[in-house]
């Protein structure tokens, strides 16, 4: 039926569809304008990834400064305030500007290829999401240059640290930059997630039923739902905080009736699903990689997906385990404790499924597989300490100690970052058309694995003997020095490993001496591996008709009836949408609006507070114009006539 309706009623030889009102940049656009106006999900994914890798280096340098400060007792590498700024910026950068956008990069690039679509459902909205993310990153880091420098409130921004009256520096703007950049980044995530949900639900190729979708695509869907349901909580919490700071409301102002505790609840209602937003994409990547390098189908495909969904669902019911020491009462505390223990079950199911996949397989230890194995082992350590924290009395001991730092770095570096690096080593041949250097890849893995464990394993012990986290320095005589020095050495090894890895990823796009990858260098299983590397701009010359799960594998090794087919060619070619300036214009408008809001208030000569919204309104007008032009420019587009073998 789908095949029938794709045939057009009458032949049309025009290759250019007329724009509704305004022309869009043409198909022949190249260079910078091409990148600024592109709506191709692959280019957007690459830009997401490259920006996130840049911020990874920025956040990494902040981490190394923190580690240098803790090298020995009473060090003065950073002042108190600089130290607070460093851990705030490190946390915020790594969560919102690195792990999330790196996941978004993979979602963007791979998900449409995995379901047999030519693009996401709303390509221009995808571009808007990218530019909002970039603006958010710029706004956060602009804070360094204005009153008070960058925020010194922790990535959690607990009230009353954010109260203007308690600011260390008069007129501190750091928290304002933090609020507005998180709003922009939230907008970027929401837009992307609406898009991904629509794409996965609606744009699957014929025959691509939900239970034939690759696990990575499933995780994209689950994470997108988590984002659209979790981000509103932080958005509203930040709106309330903005009102508190700017217009004197009393939401979190305990001197005037507000409750700082409410901030913690709202933050963690978002914050705990956020943990799964960070880890599920990496789990999706690993679920793709392990079957390929074990040469076996994923063990318990349905269970892996179902436990992912359960993790996502239960992720909304465990947020208060971040707040056991706030005195919520016995009933609430016990309930959240039990639910936290329960969430270990679906997580454990996944780990056993990965082990089951490898069991009896012919395992190849290429770099992606090494990172996948690193992911499983390191994530398990982080998971075990997580289960320890679900016990309330133990949690009370660990609260705000280095043990917690060890725990979540095992989850977020050993888990999420290893998973994402695994994804880079696995899919970069598809993205660049070139094989990465295996020896260098294994060297990077070795450095990262050793450096990571040297840095974070001692922190378990440091936490147990009492070193508090988020504390600028420690005195002599606690016995903290040795382990801190080991951790600092480890952190530099880890940093060098990551830097070489990033260099390797970026250079793969330019280094012409690398071996060509071909369509399917790993003998991999999912649909994207049936396409050429790098993937052509139209993805599929003809729409595929899916016959089985693991379609690329079935095409090579499966019975005849499982081979995918192609929809018949029609004489119209592939319809490609034109590029557009308006996503960028809309994002620039929003950026100006945020800057206008940040600087709208000033004190005049007579000491009166003056509010001037000119710039903010101008920004709002620009983005409104962007949206109006966007809706008027119409579908437009052009047609390509690819040959079958050019796919």
């Amino acid at each position: 039926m789908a095949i029938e309706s794709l045939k057009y009623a009458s032949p049309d030889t025009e290759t250019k569809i007329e724009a509704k009102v305004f022309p869009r940049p043409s198909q022949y656009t190249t260079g910078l304008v091409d990148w600024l106006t592109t709506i191709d999900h692959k280019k957007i994914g690459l830009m997401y990834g490259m920006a996130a890798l840049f911020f990874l280096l920025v956040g990494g340098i902040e981490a190394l400064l923190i580690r240098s400060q803790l090298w020995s007792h009473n060090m003065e590498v950073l002042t108190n305030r600089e130290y607070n700024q460093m851990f705030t910026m490190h946390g915020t950068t790594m969560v919102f500007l690195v792990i999330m956008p790196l996941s978004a990069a993979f979602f963007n690039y791979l998900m449409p290829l995995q379901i047999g679509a030519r693009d996401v459902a709303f390509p221009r909205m995808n571009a808007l999401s990218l530019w909002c993310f970039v603006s958010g990153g710029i706004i956060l880091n602009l804070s360094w240059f204005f009153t008070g420098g960058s925020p010194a409130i922790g990535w959690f921004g607990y009230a009353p640290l954010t109260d203007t009256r308690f600011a260390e520096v008069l007129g501190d703007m750091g928290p304002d930059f933090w609020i507005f950049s998180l709003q922009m980044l939230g907008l970027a995530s929401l837009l992307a997630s609406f898009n991904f949900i629509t794409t996965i639900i609606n744009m699957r190729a014929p025959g691509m039923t939900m239970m034939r979708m690759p696990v990575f695509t499933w995780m994209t869907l689950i994470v997108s739902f988590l984002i659209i349901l979790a981000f509103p909580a932080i958005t509203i919490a930040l709106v309330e905080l903005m009102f508190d700071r700017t217009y004197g409301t009393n939401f979190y102002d305990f001197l005037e009736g507000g409750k700082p505790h409410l901030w913690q609840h709202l933050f963690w209602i978002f914050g705990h699903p956020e943990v799964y937003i960070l880890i599920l994409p990496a789990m999706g990547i690993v679920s793709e990689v392990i079957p390929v390098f074990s040469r076996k189908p994923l063990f318990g495909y349905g269970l892996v997906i179902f436990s992912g969904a359960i993790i996502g669902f239960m992720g909304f019911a465990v947020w208060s385990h971040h707040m056991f020491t706030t005195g919520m009462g016995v009933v609430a505390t016990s309930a959240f404790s039990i639910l936290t223990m329960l969430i270990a079950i679906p997580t454990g199911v996944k780990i056993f499924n990965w082990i089951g996949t490898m069991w009896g397989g012919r395992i190849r230890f290429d770099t992606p597989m090494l990172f996948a194995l690193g992911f499983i082992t390191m994530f398990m350590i982080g998971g075990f300490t997580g289960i320890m924290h679900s016990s309330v009395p133990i949690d009370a001991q660990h609260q705000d100690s280095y043990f917690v730092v060890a725990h979540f770095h095992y989850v977020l570096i050993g888990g999420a970052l290893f998973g994402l690096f695994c994804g880079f080593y696995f899919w970069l041949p598809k993205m660049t058309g070139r094989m990465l250097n295996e020896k260098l890849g294994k060297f990077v893995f070795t450095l990262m694995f050793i450096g990571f464990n040297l840095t974070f394993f001692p922190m378990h012990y440091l936490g147990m003997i009492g070193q508090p986290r988020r504390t600028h320095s420690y005195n002599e005589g606690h016995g903290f020095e040795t382990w801190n020095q080991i951790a600092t050495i480890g952190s530099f090894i880890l940093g060098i490993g990551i830097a070489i890895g990033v260099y390797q990823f970026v250079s793969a796009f330019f280094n012409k001496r690398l071996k060509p990858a071909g369509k399917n260098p790993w003998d991999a299983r999912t649909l994207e591996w049936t396409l050429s590397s790098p993937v052509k701009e139209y993805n599929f010359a003809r729409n595929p008709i899916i016959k089985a799960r693991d379609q690329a594998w079935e095409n090579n090794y499966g019975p005849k009836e499982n081979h995918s087919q192609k929809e018949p060619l029609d004489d119209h070619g592939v319809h490609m949408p034109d590029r557009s300036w308006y996503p960028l214009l809309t994002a620039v408008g929003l950026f100006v609006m945020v800057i206008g809001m940040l600087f709208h208030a000033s004190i005049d000569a007579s000491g009166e507070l003056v509010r001037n919204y000119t710039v903010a309104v101008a920004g709002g007008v620009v983005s409104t114009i962007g949206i109006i032009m966007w809706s008027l420019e119409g579908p437009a587009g052009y047609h390509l006539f690819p040959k079958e073998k050019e796919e």
Partner: protein
Amino acid sequence: MSDAAAHALDHHEPVTSTGIPNKKVLMWAFLGSDCMFFGTLISTHLIYRKISATVGGNFLDIRDVFDIELTSFSTFILLASSLFMALAVSAIHKGNLNSTRWMLFGTIIFGAIFLACQVYEFTHFVYAPGNELTLSSYRGEPHVFGSTFYVLTGTHGTHVAIGVFWLIGWLVYSFTGKMSTADAMDVECCGLYWHFVDIVWIIIFPVVYLMEYAF
């Protein structure tokens, strides 16, 4: 209709896996997300509603401030606007442009009346003698009720205002001569949004206003 235009329409409404148009799926996902926005705001209001009442020894009887007759009227107006919206969607599906215009116009006017009532209400609450419920205080004493009340109902008002501008966009577009049944799905999405904003008010009105008279 030229071939090119027919072709463009083809691409406008591509075949989807579920048979539901992409824009509608997007709108439903957005509304699901928007539920959480309002859920957070309403929870904040409910949490603070009684707890804050004794700050400064100044018990707040918000009934002294509320003008329940006016709010009931504006609630009725907003609900009635949903009827116009539904009729506008029905009219554009049938290709009746004239009727669509009038129904859009009716929705806009009723939406605008609701907004005008809200502007009057806010001004009256803040400035009328004896009321003085501001963002941060009540009769000069620090208070949270004003914070949660204005931010919650203000966010809802912003939603209504965006809806009104969206509808005005459609009304203007209907005079360009380009509007046809092909736009019905887009108008329907606008309608989904409008009805959602109404439903949110159906929750806010009892929870924020009526409940003050019951509990």
